[in-house]
């Protein structure tokens, strides 16, 4: 299944009866507070431009009230935009007719919700085939698919339980199975793991990453947790007050936070798990000797894993090799450790550092 990317262009959302009227003043720089005070309209999203790669996980991160849940609901148009485009495979979702939109939601998107939103009167299996029921797939066929996905998310044996009988983590597995049964290209996950306790959350992240390695869907994942964003995201967009303040790979965000706000988040991050060796290695120049006997580490390995390998092997120097096995650089223990700890200029919030 070839996945298409999602292109969001110039998206504005102003909540209120006459949102359309105030777009121009927002474009001209009216702030959220001013709009609320003068016109009693709430600025939800302001000039969002994100390109979400097909087959990858895009994480939208922000604190509550930043507009992240509003943003994800524009992709399947649960919320109507004030102006802007959401392009998928060349079609603007915002211009679809009611019927087209229904077909789009049935076949192209599936959604996982923070509060699970399972149907309490349906069993796990019946919940899982819910999307297929709506598509009109006969039960004889959909149950097979449902059982397969229940098995894949690790819920075999619970097919005939009701959601009330399951723990939060298990309920969200049902939510995930329901979304996956739809066979949709786009998977929208709205704070899907925020209601779960930390261990189960990590567990569910692994489930998602394992499935994604195989399915290559276009995943949009909403979270308020930077660690989660860095673990899952091929691409991360950070929202604040309805605006994107930085987007890029996890490494880019950790290494060069766009402003103090992001820097204050990034300070607490375990950098060893985010930064990859090729970012901090000393590149080989020319045809320098591919030193023999030096431990090879493939490009894309995180610093933490490298450190583990180095301590286990008792070496102080490793060679970084490309996917084809060609040496591209080297890394010694000192620069490795240097890259793993938070640099001094990120250490304290700027206001304190100035004192």
């Amino acid at each position, binding site marked *: 299944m070839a996945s298409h990317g999602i292109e969001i262009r110039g998206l504005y959302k102003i909540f209120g009866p006459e949102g359309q009227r105030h777009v121009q003043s927002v474009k001209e720089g009216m702030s959220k507070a001013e709009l609320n005070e003068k016109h009693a309209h709430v600025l939800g999203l302001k000039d969002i431009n994100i390109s979400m790669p097909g087959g990858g996980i895009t994480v939208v991160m922000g604190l509550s009230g930043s507009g992240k849940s509003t943003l994800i609901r524009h992709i399947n148009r*649960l919320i109507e935009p004030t102006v802007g485009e959401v392009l998928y495979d060349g079609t603007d979702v915002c211009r679809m007719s009611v019927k087209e939109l229904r077909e789009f*939601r049935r076949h192209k998107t599936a959604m996982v*919700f923070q509060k699970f939103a*399972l*149907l*309490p009167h349906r069993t796990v299996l019946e919940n899982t085939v819910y999307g297929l029921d*709506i598509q009109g797939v006969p039960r004889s066929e959909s149950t097979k698919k449902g059982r397969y996905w229940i098995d894949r998310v690790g819920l075999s044996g619970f097919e005939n339980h009701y959601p009330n*009988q399951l723990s939060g983590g298990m309920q969200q597995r049902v939510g995930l199975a329901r979304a996956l049964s*739809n066979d949709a290209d786009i998977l929208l996950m709205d704070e899907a793991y925020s209601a779960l306790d930390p261990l189960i959350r990590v567990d569910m992240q692994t489930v998602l990453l394992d499935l994604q390695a195989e399915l290559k869907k276009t995943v949009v994942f909403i979270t308020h947790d930077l660690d989660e964003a860095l673990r899952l995201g091929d691409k991360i967009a950070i929202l604040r007050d309805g605006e994107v303040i930085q987007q890029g790979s996890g490494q880019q965000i950790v290494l060069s936070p766009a402003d103090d706000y992001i820097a204050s988040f990034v300070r607490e991050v375990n950098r060893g798990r985010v930064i990859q060796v090729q970012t901090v290695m000393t590149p080989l120049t020319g045809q320098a000797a591919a030193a023999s006997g030096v431990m090879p580490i493939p490009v894309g390995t995180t610093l933490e894993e490298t450190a583990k390998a180095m301590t286990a092997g008792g070496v102080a120097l490793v060679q970084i090799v490309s996917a084809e096995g060609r040496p591209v650089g080297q890394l010694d223990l000192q620069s490795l450790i240097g890259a793993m700890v938070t640099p001094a200029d990120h250490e304290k919030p700027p206001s304190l550092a100035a004192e």
Partner: protein
Amino acid sequence: MASCSILPDVLCSFPAVSDSYIRLARKTIDDGFRGLVREYSHLIDAVVQPLQVFLNALERLFVNSPWILVLAVMLAIVYLASRSIAITIGTAVGMVLIGLIGLWQDTMVTLAIVTVATLIAILIGIPIGILMARSDRVQGAINPILDVMQTLPSFVYLIPVVVIFGIGKVPGLIAVVIYAVPPMIRLTNLGIRLVDRDVLEAADAFGSSPGQKLWNVQMPLALPTIMAGINQTIMMSLAMVVVASMVGVGGLGKNTLQAINNQFFTFGFMNGFALVAIAIIFDRASQTFGKRLQKHTEVVHG
């Protein structure tokens, strides 16, 4: 009336419109109304006819079947609905006592009319409730009507019913339905409106059509409230059946009316007992049935 002596007369005794005007107005309205009824009598008959046929058929079925068969079917229904031995035994005891005091026949007549009234109330009430839940404007229009229907003393709306439909079983049935339908409508509306917003959003996100949303999500989740509505409707039909005996409904209600008119204390008490017995049977059976439908909500993960 010390204060009256110092006030002008008009402020003391209320200046009513003169009697002759009121008489004229009453006569005009009454005649107009009767004329209207007479003119549309065919239409009214056509509407009433199927009800009459249905009610008569059910009544004959209940009254003419051997009591042992009726009792067996009743116990089977009660057991299937409640899955409770205690309620089933209670039903058997209640019905046998009713039979022993010689009220079997009358109870069957009452049972028939309550059954028909409840069915009609459900058939009318649920669609109206759904419409109300879908549109605030419809809700705004219907709510005051329901308020009037529920506050109007039950005797008062026997008057137009009698004028339009005359005296008899079917007018009584119509009065019972009007009295019993408001809780059905209100609770259907309420149940649908109380459905969790998150679940509705999920239904939308998966591309439900409005009909799919109604049948897959809203109705099943509103079911406990709708069942409470059905229960209320049954109870109110039973209450109104007694009042409706004044316009010619037979059965236990008629006996009660006789007992009031003639001060037959024991006879009245026996009829009252029979009414209470079938009310409890209906109530317990429909409530446990409603609870059983919701068993998935009771097993909560620890």
